[in-house]
C-alpha cells in the first residue's frame, strides 16, 4: 500500500500533532491522579441513598435532571417528525428481492430475545445499568431486524402513534402530579422507602418514568428506522 501518493504532508503532520497531544494527555492522566478520590461518584452515592434508587446514574438522570429528559424526548419527537415529513411517502418496490433464508430464520429466533432484553433493560433501569432510552433503542433494533428480514412487514402506524401519544401525555402528567404534590416537577410522590432499595417495586415514580420514556423512544425510533429503510428501497 502506497499512501504517500494520495495523502499530503499536512495530513501526516496533523496525525503527528494529534498523537503528541494524546501522549501528553495520557501522561497527565497517569501521573496526577489525586490520592483521595477513588471514584467520582462517591458523594453522589451518599446523596443517592435518600431516594431509594440502587443505580446512582438513574437517580441523577430521572430525579435530579428529570426536566432535561422532557427536553430530550421533545428533541427526539421533532427529529422523528422531520424524518416522517421528508421520507414517509414510500411506494411499494416492484422488484424487491427476498431476504436470505438464514436472515429470515435467525431473525425469527432472535426477535423475541431482543424484545425481552429491551423490556428488561427498561424495567430494571433503577436497579442496574440501563434505562428507558437504552431499552427503547434496543426494542427499535429488534424492529429493524424484522424490517430487514421480511420485505412486506410494516410497523402498524395506528398502534405506534397511540403508544407514542399515551407515553408523552403520561410523562407530562406524572411530572405535573409531582409538581402539585411535592412542589417540584417530577417530584417523587409515590412511597420510596430506603429500606426497600434494590427491590423491583422501589424508587417511587422512577420505574414508571422509565417505562414511559422507553415506550416513547422505542416507538419513535421504530418509525425513524422504518422510514429510512423503506425510503431507501424505492430509490
Amino acid at each position, binding site marked *: 500500500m502506497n499512501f504517500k501518493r494520495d495523502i499530503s504532508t499536512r495530513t501526516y503532520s496533523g496525525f503527528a500533532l494529534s498523537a503528541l497531544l494524546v501522549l501528553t494527555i495520557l501522561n497527565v492522566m497517569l501521573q496526577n491522579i489525586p490520592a483521595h478520590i477513588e471514584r467520582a461518584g462517591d458523594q453522589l452515592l451518599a446523596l443517592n441513598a435518600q431516594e431509594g434508587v440502587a443505580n446512582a*446514574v438513574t437517580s441523577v438522570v430521572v430525579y435530579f435532571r428529570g426536566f432535561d429528559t422532557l427536553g430530550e424526548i421533545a428533541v427526539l419527537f421533532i427529529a422523528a417528525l422531520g424524518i416522517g415529513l421528508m421520507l414517509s411517502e414510500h411506494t411499494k418496490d416492484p422488484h424487491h428481492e427476498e431476504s436470505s433464508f438464514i436472515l429470515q430464520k435467525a431473525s425469527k429466533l432472535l426477535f423475541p430475545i431482543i424484545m425481552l432484553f429491551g423490556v428488561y433493560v427498561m424495567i430494571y433501569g433503577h436497579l442496574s445499568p440501563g434505562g428507558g432510552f437504552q431499552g427503547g433503542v434496543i426494542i427499535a433494533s429488534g424492529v429493524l431486524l424484522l424490517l430487514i428480514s421480511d420485505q412486506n412487514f410494516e410497523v402498524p402506524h395506528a398502534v405506534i402513534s397511540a403508544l407514542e401519544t399515551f407515553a408523552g401525555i403520561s410523562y407530562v402528567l406524572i411530572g405535573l402530579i409531582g409538581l402539585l404534590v411535592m412542589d417540584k416537577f417530577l417530584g417523587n410522590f409515590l412511597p420510596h422507602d430506603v429500606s426497600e432499595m434494590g427491590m423491583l417495586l422501589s424508587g417511587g415514580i422512577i420505574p414508571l418514568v422509565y417505562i414511559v420514556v422507553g415506550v416513547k423512544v422505542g416507538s419513535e425510533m421504530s418509525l425513524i428506522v422504518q422510514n429510512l429503510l423503506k425510503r431507501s428501497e424505492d430509490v
Partner: protein
Amino acid sequence: MTGLIILFAFFAVIIVAFAAVIQKRLPDAIILFMGVGLGTVVLFFVMQAPDVAMTEAVIGAGISSLIFLMALKHFKEPV
C-alpha cells in the same frame, strides 16, 4: 490491569479512527467507524460508566452506522 485495558482500548480507538479517516471506500469507512464505537464501549465500561457504555453500544455502534449506511444507499454511483 485496568490501566492496561484502558491504554489498549485507547490506542485501538485512535488507530481505528485514523484508518476510518484515510479509508478510500466509504462502506469500509463506516465499518471502521463502528469499530471506533466498540472501542469506546470498552473504555466507558472499564471506566465504571456502564450506563454510558450501553447507550454508546446501541446508538454509536448500531443506529448511527445504520443511518450512514442508509444514506450511502442513496448515492447514485458506487463508491
